[in-house]
């Protein structure tokens, strides 16, 4: 666009707009910054000042405390396990189903597509699903956190659409060279789909790490609770983290409850913050693929 005269009103609007957006951007991350700084606080500091962004003295006691307790360390282990295995299961189920569904010539393809779409519109609901999980003897097993969500119908359709858009010529050439169907998927289609697969790996992984609902429904045994459930126990129900203080330095003073809570929140969010930069590179594209009709 050619440069043109900007009225005073437009300039005022621009200044106002940049300012408002800046405030909104900061507001989005501010609560989290407060929690991070609060997690390093000492008792003295918390009683002295209610709100602060930069602590005057940094103490790692809250973190030392939570990593000394069996309950939290174990729940972090559960969450990591479910995230890694669960994401692998998600990818396997999604890719194996999306690939055949992308073939326009496959007999029964439309029936299957409609079966999948119908599940997006209507579901059995909480209780019938719970009873199925119970009948399958999955209650109180970590598989109950993995299998019932093995495929997201929405993601499946996006991946299917992506496969469908790949050029048929490459596939035909590979077939002429004697490539089998599985070879085609493994050697041609998957390498070409790296961006879309990366997006869904991250989405599925974040979903598993953040999952609270399934664990609430299907896991009663506290030793199998993932971190999100443990977080609720400690922060909202104020259940003590019950650390093993005997193994600690005798001079160790138990950190204030507020900073322990904040430290647990930080630990529950940290993995997300670590993958966020990678996530961010991909997701706008991934989400857009979903909004394209088809």
């Amino acid at each position, binding site marked *: 666009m050619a440069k043109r005269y900007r*009225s005073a009103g437009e300039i005022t*609007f*621009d200044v106002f*707009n*940049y300012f*408002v*957006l800046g405030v*909104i951007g900061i*507001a989005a*991350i501010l*609560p*989290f910054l*407060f929690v991070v700084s*609060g997690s390093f606080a000492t008792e003295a500091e918390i009683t002295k000042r*209610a*709100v602060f962004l930069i602590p005057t003295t940094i103490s790692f006691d809250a973190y030392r405390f939570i990593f000394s307790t069996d309950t939290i360390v174990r729940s972090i282990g559960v969450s990591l396990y479910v995230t890694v295995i669960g994401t692998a299961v998600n990818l396997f189920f999604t890719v*194996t*189903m999306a690939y*055949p*569904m992308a*073939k326009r*010539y*496959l*007999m029964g393809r439309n029936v299957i597509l409609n079966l999948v779409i119908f*599940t997006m519109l*209507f*579901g*059995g*609901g*909480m*209780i*019938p699903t*719970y*009873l*199925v999980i119970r009948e399958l003897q999955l209650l109180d097993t970590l598989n109950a956190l993995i*299998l019932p969500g*093995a*495929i997201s119908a929405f993601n499946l359709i996006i991946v299917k659409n992506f496969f469908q858009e790949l050029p048929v010529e490459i596939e035909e050439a590979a077939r002429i060279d004697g490539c089998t*169907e*599985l070879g085609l998927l493994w050697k041609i289609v998957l390498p070409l789909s790296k961006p879309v697969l990366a997006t869904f790996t991250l989405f599925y992984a*974040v979903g598993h790490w*953040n*999952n*609270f*609902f399934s664990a*609430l*429904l299907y896991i009663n045994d506290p030793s199998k609770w993932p971190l*999100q*459930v443990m977080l*609720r126990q400690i922060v*909202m129900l104020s259940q003590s983290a019950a650390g093993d203080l005997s193994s600690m330095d005798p001079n160790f003073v138990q950190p204030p409850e507020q900073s322990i*809570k904040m430290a647990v*929140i930080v630990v*529950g*969010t940290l993995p*997300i913050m670590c993958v*966020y930069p990678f*996530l961010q590179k991909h*997701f*706008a594209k991934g989400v857009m693929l979903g909004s394209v009709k088809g």
Partner: protein
Amino acid sequence: MKQGAAIGTADIHAAATYRSRRELRFRRLKRDKWLYILLTPGLLYFLVFKYVPMWGVLLAFKDYQPFLGFWKSDWVGLEHFRTFFQNPDFFMLLRNTLVLSLYNLVFFFPAPIILALLLNEVRLSFYKRTIQTMIYVPHFISMVIVASISYVFLTTQGGAVNEFLYSVTGSKIDFLASPDWFRPLIILQTIWKECGWGTIIFLAALAGVDVEQYEAAVVDGASRWRQTWHITLPAIRSTIVILLILRMGTILDNGFEQIYLMMNALNREVAEVFDTYVYALGITQGAFSYSTAVGLFKSVIGVVLVLGTNWLAKKSGESGLY
């Protein structure tokens, strides 16, 4: 098949195509056998975890007795529905659900649209990207973390917000236990968590607007407000309608996790919605049939709402979802 051929030949011809069609089908099955093998795990997943539970909604019409099991329990028809509609809880649930949805529609739904319009006016692409990076973050944080952060800040026992209030006004407000604060808190959490993320789809729609239209408008002397009103907004209208349809379908879904996490004995009266009620009665108290009936009522209304809004959207000239 060709019309006008002699009857005899036509019959022979039909029989021949029939045989070859069956053969063709078999040949195609054989040729694509690997594709069907690949499909199996996914299909099994949908059957076991999606279609078996759908069939399980029949529980709503039975009087499920754990020791008798699904098959031997008695059919009771619509009795559970009747009990539910006569229960005073029904109106509480309906009111809470609808009020929360209405608040969402009024306060949350327009927020990403406005934010996207503001972002779209930013010419400095570095600034725009930075803001986007910041406002997408909360979407990836779990609801438990969101509720936890609310708790540590709002609690009357050393929560920063209350400490601050105390130092200024000398009194504290129990945000977490007060029925008056429940709805504003829920909406604020939703806006904080999802508003930025919601802009993605509108920004994409805005990016698709033809630049020439703006240039023509500038030539015609349109101000930026006029451009927004006559070009930008009409350009994203269909996206808004589609999202509105999707929102209608989930009007009875108020997000189980969020409400469950923020609900307590003191604010239950305004907090309890269909999903939390189903959980409380079904999972924690074992009233499977009754809570299945409540859940089924909710899903059916949901489907009707989606189809209804979609129909309306089509009637008014939008493309709709289906």
